[in-house]
């Protein structure tokens, strides 16, 4: 710290040139930071989109297909929640389906009932049971991660239900605490409530919870099994295997053939492009930064000679020259990251990122942004160190007497 005043004084000595150096570092930092930010946001967006597409296959009672227009597979729908129905089957078959080749996951869903709660929703609220341990279709839609896992006495609610986390909701005389709220899905899910399966069975057995004419819901009965196919596997083949297995149990498979692949493919090249740009900027900027460092050392050779005459050792000269570069680099990195973050926030706020990247851009988390900023700072510091080490060394080894007599500073 005792050298700080001297280092700051050195920076103030040539404000124009040092401002240019800071700007140079800032541009490099902004380029690096923006690249990482966009790549992370884009990858996150595609991942989130894929996760929110839900299941690849839906295992349902054969009668269920009557509920669908043009029964059978649907090329466009996302399979997130089963449609409300009283067609059920025993969930034991789902355990067997889970062992079928190329099945990556199976999760059961049960439609319990529909209730009317005018204070919370203008539409009837569909109540579902899901298995929190195996669910992979509802959870990706949560607005925020759950503080505690979905369990007894807690529920998740759709976006159109007028309540929030930690509020309570009463269904058939039972009170549940809202653990999480889903993003808007533009589907029936927006006015649905999701309970853990045990709570769903308990609710189903309560007096008056389901219409008297509907078939009773026994423990183990489910309306659907949502199936995730292993990445890269042939969905048709998996569908065929499950159909063979399920025919005896009178269940059938509905397939989804829509995917985010085209968008993902469109975006596939973006990280490569951004990384290439960053590499080019780094390579092009390195000699420039080195030149600035060499200029600084050259301009100040008389001053350095004076410092040597006052007793500065060579390591101290190396330290002082490099420290100045590092301070400039640090300032530049901070300015570049700050400006980049501000600009990206504005672009996101006006929807530019969504339209430019054709995805619902996912803003990286604070932790991710911190990591990107730290990595950017490290790269800039490394660059400043590498570019200034030789000029600093040259400054320390030059003839102090000649420097004092001939230097211009």
């Amino acid at each position: 710290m005792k050298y700080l005043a001297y280092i700051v004084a050195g920076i103030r000595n040539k404000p124009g040139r040092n401002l240019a150096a800071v700007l140079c570092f800032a541009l490099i930092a902004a380029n690096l930071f923006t690249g990482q930010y966009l790549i992370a946001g884009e990858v996150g967006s595609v991942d989130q989109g894929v996760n929110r597409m839900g299941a690849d296959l839906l295992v349902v009672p054969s009668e269920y297909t009557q509920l669908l227009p043009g029964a059978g597979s649907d090329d466009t729908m996302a399979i997130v929640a089963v449609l409300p129905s009283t067609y059920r089957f025993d969930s034991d078959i789902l355990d067997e389906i889970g062992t079928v080749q190329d099945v990556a996951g199976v999760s059961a869903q049960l439609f319990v009932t529909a209730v009317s709660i005018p204070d919370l929703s203008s539409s009837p609220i569909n109540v579902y049971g899901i298995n929190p341990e195996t669910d992979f279709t509802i959870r990706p839609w949560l607005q925020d991660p759950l503080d505690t896992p979905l369990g007894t006495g807690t529920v998740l609610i759709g976006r159109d239900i007028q309540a929030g986390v930690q509020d309570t909701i009463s269904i058939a005389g039972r009170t549940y605490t809202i653990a999480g709220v889903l993003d808007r899905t533009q589907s029936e899910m927006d006015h649905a409530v999701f309970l853990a399966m045990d709570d769903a069975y308990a609710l189903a057995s309560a007096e008056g919870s389901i219409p008297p004419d509907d078939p009773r819901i026994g423990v183990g009965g489910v309306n659907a099994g949502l199936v995730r196919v292993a990445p890269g596997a042939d969905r048709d083949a998996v569908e065929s295997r499950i159909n063979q297995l399920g025919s005896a149990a009178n269940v059938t498979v509905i397939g989804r053939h829509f995917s985010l692949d085209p968008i993902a493919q469109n975006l596939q090249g973006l990280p490569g492009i951004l990384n290439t740009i960053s590499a080019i900027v780094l390579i092009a900027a390195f000699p420039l930064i080195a030149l600035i460092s060499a200029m600084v050392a050259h301009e100040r050779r008389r001053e350095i000679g004076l410092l040597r005459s006052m007793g500065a050792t060579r390591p101290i000269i190396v330290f002082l020259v490099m420290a100045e570069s590092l301070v400039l680099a640090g300032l530049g990195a901070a300015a570049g990251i700050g400006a980049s973050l501000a600009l990206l926030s504005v672009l996101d706020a006006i929807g530019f990122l969504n339209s430019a990247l054709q995805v619902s851009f996912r803003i990286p988390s604070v932790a991710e942004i911190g990591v990107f900023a730290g990595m950017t700072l490290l790269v800039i510091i490394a660059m400043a160190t590498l570019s200034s080490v030789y000029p600093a060394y040259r400054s320390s080894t030059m003839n102090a007497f000649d420097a004092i007599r001939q230097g211009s500073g």
Partner: protein
Amino acid sequence: MLAGLIRPSSGTIRIRGMDIGSLSDDDISELRSREIGFVFQFSGLLPTLTALQNVMVPTLFSKGEAGTRARAMELIRTVGLSERADTYPGTLSSGEMKRIAIARALINSPSLLIADEPTGDLDVDTENEIMQLFRQLNREGMTIVMVTHNPDLVEYATRMFRMDRGRLEEQTGLHSGAPLPVSLSR
């Protein structure tokens, strides 16, 4: 050469009995910070540091009893610029800058002061004050090697050398006893 900035091609230079030619670069630097003060022909002040900060620069490199801020202020007072301690060199006259440079050279209490035309930019009164200061420092034990073109300053010197076509020749008839300033005339 006396300060170890240039290595002699032959002969030896001893400071406090130590052959500085045998020292490593870092050891010579340390010796300079501890034992030698410089006053150059130009002031050599750093324009973005105040006068006080400039005076304190050599303390950055001193491992020994570094001069304190109070000592820096005392030296600035001694050279008659206490009211200008917090001003930047750009607002000082060339004479004032030279006086700050002298204060800087003295901050680490060196045993040897090397001064190149230290009074070159000063008016007569200030010149006399500085030379009186040098005389006092010398009497306190500091060796002062001064280069000057001003023949009027000969009266302050105890030994005088003249540089003539690269040869240093001692001028006789000045010695007045005990350790006194040495003036080099070229």
